[in-house]
C-alpha cells in the first residue's frame, strides 16, 4: 500500500481515486486513510448495486459524490485550503502595507544614489530604479505571504487545538499600547534587517568608504558571494523570526532557543573569520591608519571579536529573560 507509482491504465476508477486522495497524505496516515476510503466506497457501491444500479454507473456516481480528491485529502488531515486564513489575515495585511510604505522608497533612493555615483546616464538611472524597486516590492509581497503561510500551517497550540475548551475572557483582550509597541518593534526590526542587508551588499559591491580617491569596502571583499550569501539568508531567517515573535505575542522558551541558534549561526563564523583575518578588509585599515598597521589590525580584530560575542551573548540572555518574564 506504500506503492505510490501511477496505477496502470487498467486500474479501476476506485483505485485511481484512492491513489489521488492518498498521494498528498503524510506517510504515517496514508494506509489508514486508503483502507477506510476503500471500505467506504465499496460499502456505498454495494448499496447502489443492491438497489439495482449497474456496477459501472454506481462506481461513477459514488466517486463523483465524493468530489475533488485533493479537497477530500485536505479535509482528512485538516489542512487549510487557503494561503492565509482569517486568524492572521489582518496581521499580514497590516505588516505588508507598512513595509510597502517604508522599504520601496528607501530601496529606490539607494538604487538611484548608487547608479548616480557609478556615473550611469539618466536613462539607466531611471530604468534601474524602477526595475529594482519593483523587484523589492515583489519580494516583500512574496516573503511576507510566505512567512504567514508557514505560520498558518505549522503554528502549534493555536485556536485549532484549543477547540471549545478555551473560552475567551476579558483578560485575553490585548493592551492597545502594548500591541502597538510590539508591532512597532517588529517593523523597526524588519526595516533594520533590510537596511543591514542593503548596507552589507553595498559594501561588498561598491564599498562604503571613500579613501585615496576610490571606494573601499569595510569588510573583506573575499566574503562575496559565499559567506555574504549565507549571512543574507540568516538575516532573512531572522526577519521571519521577528514576524513569528510578533504573531506569538510574547517570548517563549522555544523562541529564546531559536534566537540563541540564530545568534550562534552569525557569531561563530564571524569570530572564526575574524581570527583567520578574513572578516575585515585589510586594505581599508592599512589606508586609514598607515602607522604600524599590523598592531592596529590586531587590536581592532580583538575589539571586533569581543563586540560580536558580547552582542550575541547579551541578545541570547535577553531572549531568555523576556521568555521568563512572559511566564512560559
Amino acid at each position, binding site marked *: 500500500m506504500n506503492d505510490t507509482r501511477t496505477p496502470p491504465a487498467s486500474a479501476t476508477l476506485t483505485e485511481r481515486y484512492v491513489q489521488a486522495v492518498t498521494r498528498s497524505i503524510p506517510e504515517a496516515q496514508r494506509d489508514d486513510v486508503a*483502507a477506510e476510503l476503500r*471500505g467506504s466506497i465499496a460499502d456505498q457501491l454495494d*448499496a447502489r448495486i443492491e438497489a439495482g444500479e449497474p456496477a459501472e454507473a454506481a462506481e461513477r456516481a459514488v466517486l463523483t*459524490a*465524493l468530489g475533488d480528491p485533493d479537497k*477530500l485529502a485536505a479535509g482528512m488531515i*485538516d489542512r487549510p485550503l487557503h494561503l492565509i486564513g482569517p486568524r492572521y489575515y489582518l496581521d499580514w495585511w497590516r505588516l505588508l502595507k507598512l513595509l510597502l510604505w517604508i522599504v520601496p522608497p528607501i530601496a529606490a533612493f539607494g538604487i538611484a544614489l548608487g547608479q548616480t555615483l557609478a556615473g550611469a546616464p539618466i536613462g539607466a538611472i531611471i530604468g534601474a530604479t524602477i526595475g529594482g524597486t519593483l523587484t523589492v516590492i515583489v519580494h516583500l509581497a512574496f516573503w511576507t505571504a510566505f512567512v504567514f503561510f508557514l505560520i498558518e500551517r505549522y503554528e502549534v497550540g493555536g485556536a485549532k487545538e484549543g477547540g471549545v475548551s478555551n473560552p475567551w475572557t476579558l483578560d485575553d483582550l490585548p493592551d492597545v499600547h502594548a500591541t502597538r509597541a510590539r508591532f512597532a518593534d517588529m517593523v523597526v526590526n524588519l526595516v533594520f534587517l533590510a537596511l543591514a542587508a542593503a548596507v552589507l551588499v553595498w559594501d561588498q559591491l561598491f564599498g562604503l568608504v571613500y579613501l585615496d580617491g576610490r571606494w573601499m569596502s569595510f569588510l573583506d571583499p573575499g566574503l562575496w558571494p559565499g559567506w555574504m550569501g549565507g549571512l543574507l539568508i540568516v538575516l532573512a531567517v531572522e526577519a521571519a523570526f521577528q514576524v513569528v515573535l510578533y504573531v506569538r505575542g510574547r517570548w517563549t522558551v522555544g523562541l529564546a532557543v531559536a534566537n540563541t541558534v540564530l545568534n550562534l549561526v552569525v557569531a561563530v563564523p564571524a569570530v572564526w573569520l575574524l581570527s583567520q583575518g578574513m572578516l575585515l578588509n585589510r586594505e581599508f585599515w592599512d589606508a586609514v591608519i598607515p602607522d604600524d598597521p599590523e598592531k592596529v589590525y590586531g587590536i581592532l580584530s580583538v575589539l571586533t571579536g569581543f563586540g560580536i560575542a558580547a552582542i550575541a551573548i547579551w541578545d541570547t540572555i535577553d531572549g531568555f529573560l523576556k521568555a521568563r518574564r512572559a511566564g512560559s
Partner: protein
Amino acid sequence: MNDEDMPDVDGQTIHLQELRRGTVVLACLRLLSEPGYGYSLLESLQSRGFDTDANTLYPLLRRLEKQGHLTSEWNTDDARPRKFYRTSPEGLRLAQALTHEFRAIAAAIDALPEED
C-alpha cells in the same frame, strides 16, 4: 441528497448548511456511543434526517478523533476491514453540552416573536 444539488431559493442553501453543520457533530457523537463504521453511520444519519455526505463525514470523524472526542479501532474479522469509531468519555461530555445548548437555542427560538 447533496445540499449543493438543491435549487438555491433566495440564497437559502448556504445558511441552511451553516445551521446544520454543528448538528451533524452532535448526531455523530450520540450515535457513536455504540461503535460504528463510516458507511453504517452515514446510513443512520441519513435515515434519521441528518443530511450528510460521505465527503464531509469522513473528515469530520478524523477531526473528532484527533481532538479526542472519538476513539477508533480496525475490525478485520469481516472480509472487508472496517474502521470502527466510538465516542470517548470526553466526546460524551461534549455531546451532552451540545445537546443542552441545542435545546436552549430551540427554546430561545420558540420565544422569538412569531413570524407572520
